[in-house]
Every structure is written in structure tokens, then in C-alpha cells.
């Protein structure tokens, strides 16, 4: 066994840091796209809008049944073709792995967030809807100001746990050869042969970030639980 030499990590710190920033940016973008789109998908299913509700149900079921890596491959292949059709000339438009990753994670996470929100919508007390009707609120106002805020608040710990999983899953963009935290470490490791140090540091970095985030969620959950029991 060779002696461990972590000096390589301090030397290559800027590169690793840019990789980490990419991972965080991807997580943030997927969170925003996923939440907005996921809420829409959940509402369509909740209102049982014909045809669309069935299509979305199928989409969510398929996305949840196949591995994320296969989804990444699918989108890497499909997105240029679809964009080509949308642009009118029918020729595939190559958009590069980075944009593919952002689009894929956004659409993929939308399926998971929509499941969470859909269940949350079902859990809202019927009295809330009746009260809204009694106040003559429109359907839009009911959902915008009464129902969705409650759903998001109640489901926030699960949504945040899901986002921590999302952060860990962004490491899978490795299969698209992108330079996220793991991708950066892997490229450096192959360059200088320091596999052990690089992968250990990356593991510790993910562990630190994810556990810190989980602790925050736990605190939030506890505070929230207190607030409701009062």
C-alpha cells in the first residue's frame, strides 16, 4: 500500500471547487424546474383533466420505474431530436451534455416532486375547500392562496429530503462525462494516478454536505412539529 498523499487535493482545489459549484447549480436548477413543473403535473392529475392526467400518470410511472442513468441516456438521445422538430426544420439540434443534464434532471425530478405534492393535495382537509367556497373564492384563488401553501408547508420536510437525494444523484452525470464534483475528481485521479486520495476526499465532501443538510431538515421538522402541536 502506497502512503496517502493529500497534497494533490490542495493543489487541485480550484478545479474540485468548480466541480462542486456545478453539482450545486445542477441541484438548484433541477429543484426549481422540478418543483414548478411537478406542481403543475400534480394539479393536472388532481383535477383529473382528461387525457393529460393519464399521460402524466404514465410519464410518472415510467420515470419512477427506470434507472436515472437510463433516463439520462434517453434524454441525451431524444432532446436534440425533439428540439429539432420544435424548431421546424426537423434536423436534430445538438445542445451538449451540460444542457441535457439540466433538462433531464428538471424533468426527472418533476416526476418525483409531483408524486409528493399529489399526495399532499389529497391530504388537505375537506373543510378548507368548503370554507373557500363559503368565502366565494375562485378555484384559482383557492389553490393559489389556501391549498398550495398548506401542501408545500406540510410536505416541505419530504421535499427537502428528496432534494438531498437529488444532490447525491447529480453525481450520475459522470456517465455524460460532465465535470461535476465527482467528474472533476475522477479526471484529476486519472491524470495523476491518485485515485485513492481523490475518491476519499469526494466521499467525505458528499458525506459532509448531505449530513449537514439532513440535520437541517431534522431541525426544521422538529420545529414544524412543535408549531402544529401548539
Amino acid at each position: 500500500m502506497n502512503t496517502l498523499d493529500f497534497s494533490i487535493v490542495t493543489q487541485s482545489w480550484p478545479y474540485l471547487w468548480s466541480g462542486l459549484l456545478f453539482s450545486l447549480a445542477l441541484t438548484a436548477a433541477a429543484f426549481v424546474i422540478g418543483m414548478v413543473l411537478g406542481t403543475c403535473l400534480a394539479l393536472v392529475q388532481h383535477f383529473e383533466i382528461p387525457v393529460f392526467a393519464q399521460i402524466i400518470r404514465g410519464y410518472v410511472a415510467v420515470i419512477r420505474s427506470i434507472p436515472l442513468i437510463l433516463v439520462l441516456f434517453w434524454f441525451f438521445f431524444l432532446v436534440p431530436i425533439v428540439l429539432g422538430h420544435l424548431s421546424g426544420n426537423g434536423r436534430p439540434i445538438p445542445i451538449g451534455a451540460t444542457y441535457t443534464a439540466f433538462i433531464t434532471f428538471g424533468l426527472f425530478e418533476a416526476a418525483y416532486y409531483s408524486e409528493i405534492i399529489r399526495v399532499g393535495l389529497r391530504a388537505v382537509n375537506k373543510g378548507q375547500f368548503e370554507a373557500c367556497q363559503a368565502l366565494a373564492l375562485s378555484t384559482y384563488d383557492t389553490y393559489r392562496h389556501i391549498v398550495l401553501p398548506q401542501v408545500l408547508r406540510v410536505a416541505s420536510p419530504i421535499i427537502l429530503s428528496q432534494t438531498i437525494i437529488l444532490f447525491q444523484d447529480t453525481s450520475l452525470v459522470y456517465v455524460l462525462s460532465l465535470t461535476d464534483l465527482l467528474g472533476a475528481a475522477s479526471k484529476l485521479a486519472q491524470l495523476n494516478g491518485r485515485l485513492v486520495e481523490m475518491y476519499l476526499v469526494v466521499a467525505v465532501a458528499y458525506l459532509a454536505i448531505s449530513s449537514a443538510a439532513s440535520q437541517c431538515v431534522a431541525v426544521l421538522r422538529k420545529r414544524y412539529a412543535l408549531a402544529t402541536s401548539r
Partner: protein
Amino acid sequence: MFGVLFEQTADGQRYIDWLLSGLGWTLALAFFGWWIAFGIGVVVGVGRTVQNRFFSVPARLYVEIFRNIPVLVQMFLWYFVFPEVVPSALGDAIKQIPPPWASFFPALLCLGLYTASRIAEQVRAGIEALPRGQIEAANALGLNGYLTYRYVIVPQALRLIVPSLTSEVMGIYKNTSVALTIGLMELTAQARQISEATFQTFTAFGAATIIYLCLALVAYQAMTLIDKAVRIPGSAPVKPGTDEDLATEMRQGGAVPNAMEVVK
């Protein structure tokens, strides 16, 4: 559309044979990984609930570490790092393992240990959902700690958590695809290989997707049957691991949520 799958490949097989061999690796990994995960998961889950710090602290550490490192990074740790940090005789022996197995065993270990941390949290939730009276009754009958867990607590907890274990079963077969990064030719890897060899990307990925969907369906049906067979009469299914607070709150709000914990 799927005709290309029955064409000859360069090595004299048909493309469908590649897919089936990939499916074989996927199933082997998921099946054996599951039993490793289940065995360790139950032990660690029990450890999370005992008073004795000698057991509960390592159990907590185990769950924290294995749940908070991405599967892909864990895969690399077992494949690249593990043979380097163990004594060199053992490390060299590991490096001598011939090709498919050299990827299979690290992947098996990785998936088993990772899934175990998730199952442990489910087991803990199941144990905590049992009424206190069960332990008190066991004490009153003179059972010691081990016998209480062995004959009273664990069997009941496992029967309660079958529905939430479904998502872990789905999780482990989906995570088998991560093994392609260390060179195991499982289903997703074979689909990619076929797409590169034939340029029939749609067919290749479509076939793999259909197979994964079938696996999901089979897993779901099997778990539903198991749940029906072992469900404690009159009990409501326990909500998964970390979300029990929310599940209770939502239940008070009216509908009973299911499948709250989503797993990739």
C-alpha cells in the same frame, strides 16, 4: 421496430442475447444484493432502537455514512479504493479476480451495504410504530432483551413494513445500473452497447425500458402478495422511515398518504 434485436452481432450472437445477458446480471445483482441488504438492515435497524450506546452509536453512524454518500461514489470506493487500502496481499488477490466478477463483487457489496442503510431506517420505523405494551408484555412474561426482539418485536415490525420495503426493492434493481460505471455489462450498459453497434437507439433503449417496467411490475405485485400474506390483521400499513411525523400529520388531515418516500 424490435426486429433489429434478432439480427446477428459481430460475435455470432443476436442482440437480444446481449440484452438477456444484461438482464441476468441485473437480476443477480438485485437478488443477492437484496439479501445482504435485508440481513444487515434488520440488524442495524434493531441497533438503532436499543438503549445500549455500544450498539446504537455504531448503528447510527452506519446509517449516516452509507445514506449520505452517493451510490456512484460508494461504487468507486469499493472498486478503486478498497483494494488499495487493505493489506497488499489481500489487495493483490482482489485485483487477480477475472473480469466480470471483478466488477460484480464490488457492485454487490456496494448495493447491499447502501440499501441496508435504507432498510435499517424502515425497520426502525416499524419497531417504533409498535405499541409500548408489546415490550411490557414481553418483560412481564420474563423474556430477556434478545428474546423480546427475536420473538416479539422484530417479527411484528417486519410484517408492518412490507409495503414500505416495496420502494427499497424498486430502488435496488434501479441502482444496479450504476454498476455500469465500473464496467459491469448489466441491462442499461447492454442497451447502450446495442445502440452504439446498430444506431437503433430508440429500439435499444425502448427494449431496456420495457424490461425495467416489467421488473417494476413484478416487484410491485410480489410485494403486494407478500403484504397480503403477512399483514397483521386490522393493522394499517406503517409509513416509511423518516417521514412518519408527516404521515401522521397528514393522516390527521384526512386522507392516508401512501408511497410518500420516493426512491430512485
